């Protein structure tokens, strides 16, 4: 299981998560949710690019990608709710580990959108 132990590892995981969700929601015919996921992906790409502050890069501990693997096989309403819940938990767990406030805020907002 890959460790989410750097700024880039966390942001790249978030970007990949939103890309997966966008594809998944498209397949499920949930166009609005797919668009929202794609919008978040683009925002996170910008956040990764603009908020990587070289002088404050620090190792990150205690996060593992395996804990946030989405189960995209269950397409039921309950399955979709579980996916959204796990995505929200991911953002809630990773945001406090990032030491750049702008990036933290973006992650928190992604989490809120998944909880809504």
């Amino acid at each position, binding site marked *: 299981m890959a460790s989410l132990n750097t700024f880039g590892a966390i942001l790249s995981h978030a970007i990949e998560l939103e890309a997966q969700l966008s594809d998944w929601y498209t397949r499920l015919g949930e166009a609005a949710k797919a668009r929202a996921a794609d919008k978040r992906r683009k925002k996170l790409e910008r956040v990764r690019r603009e908020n990587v502050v*070289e002088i404050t890069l620090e190792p990150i501990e205690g996060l593992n990608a395996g804990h946030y693997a989405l189960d995209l096989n269950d397409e039921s309403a309950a399955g979709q709710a579980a996916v959204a819940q796990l995505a929200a938990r991911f953002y809630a767990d990773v945001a406090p580990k990032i030491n750049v406030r702008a990036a933290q805020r973006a992650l928190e907002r992604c989490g809120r959108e998944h909880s809504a």
Partner: protein
Amino acid sequence: MSKTIKNYVDGQWLESGSDRLIPVQDPATCELLAHCPDSTSADVDAAVSAAREAFNEWRSTPVLVRAQYMHHFKVMVEDNFEEISRIVVREHGKTMDEARGEVRRGVESIDFAMSVPVLMRSDGLEDISSGIDETTVRQPAGVFAAITPFNFPFMVPLWFLPTAITCGNTFILKPSPQTPLSTEYLFEMLDELDLPEGVVNLVNGGVPSATALMEHPDVTGVSFVGSSPVAKIIYETCTRNGKRVQAQGGAKNYIAVMPDANIEASVSNILGAAYGCAGQRCLAAAVAVGVGDAYDQLKDELAKRVASLKVGYGLDETTQMGTVISDSAKERIESMIGQSEGEGADVVVDGRDFSVDGYERGSWVGPTLIADVQPDTTMANEEVFGPVLSLMKADSFDEAVDIINQSRYGNAASIFTNNGKHAREFKYSVNAGNIGVNIGVAAPSASFPFGGQKDSFFGDLHGQGMDSIEFYTERKIVIERWV
């Protein structure tokens, strides 16, 4: 068959006249990425000639138009951000985050150059005598060159090039022959900008091209970043040849950790400062001075966390520290660790003979922590430029400051403390050009000059900030009377 990098002269990609080629390797995989030509003085002549020819038209191009090129340039860098970062990782060996951070700081320098229309404005005074007005104007000064290092191959050229040309000068870059690929990419983007031919030029190579630039009569000024012995040579050669010069050298950066500091948070930041870019940066934390009780706490916390840093290939996002630049760098660093051991220091975490699965041929030096370093020894005084952090003990704040001020270098120094009085006293009395308070890497942003004192800097005007506007312009005083 790997490619041979070309020079970019007068708006065209040209082969160097040299038949000497320098191999460019990925230091983690040892894959041969390219060959870099060791360009000749004739190559430099062609670049300087093109830059000189382009100067008059370029200086009369409105400054707002020149700044507009920087807007387009920034967009190109943002659009290609990930690709550039990957190139930096491959040619240098650093991690993706470090490469992204480097590209980001390069973008900051482009942002700064966009403010040249404001920063080049000057002042004036009416009626300095009856009916006589006096004004100052800033004018571009001519052809400038930069000789840049391997450790930040994309960022350091951008400390100089955007501001130089937006001020109306023309420019020649000679990057490190160890890492010429991201600058090649940079020039591919500049080529897309359709700047007038000759405004920006790229000459690849080593000592012969650097010497030719420093001695060329048509080069107005030279910027350099590298080691102190070379910076001194650059400074002396350029001044002997009547040029402006800013030569940023090496460092031995100290960090004082006070007993009142939050040790855990301090160590998190110190890890990045000491082992980021595998310690190959002129602002790397080299020696942490633990004051009083802080020493043992610092040593214990660092020992625990240094050993757990993940070393690996930079393209893997989970890598926390990459390789050093070459096998010869690895040998030099390992030899210095051995020397310090011989001098009685305690190698707490030993990065010698380090290997990474799947990349066994790479130039690896593991993160190294050396304790009980004494003031008159190798690790207290010599720049390692590798992932080695030394620990020294001081009984008091004053003793820590004395230890730091004894260094012949003066690039950066930091203090970790919760005591404002100590922080203030540190800023006031430590002789270093960049001071960090609860920041291990005191790297100035683009709108501030990059400080440096003692053997860490040779020259008068530093890179970045208003110093760079001064460096790249000539002030002319105009006194007028109309009868």
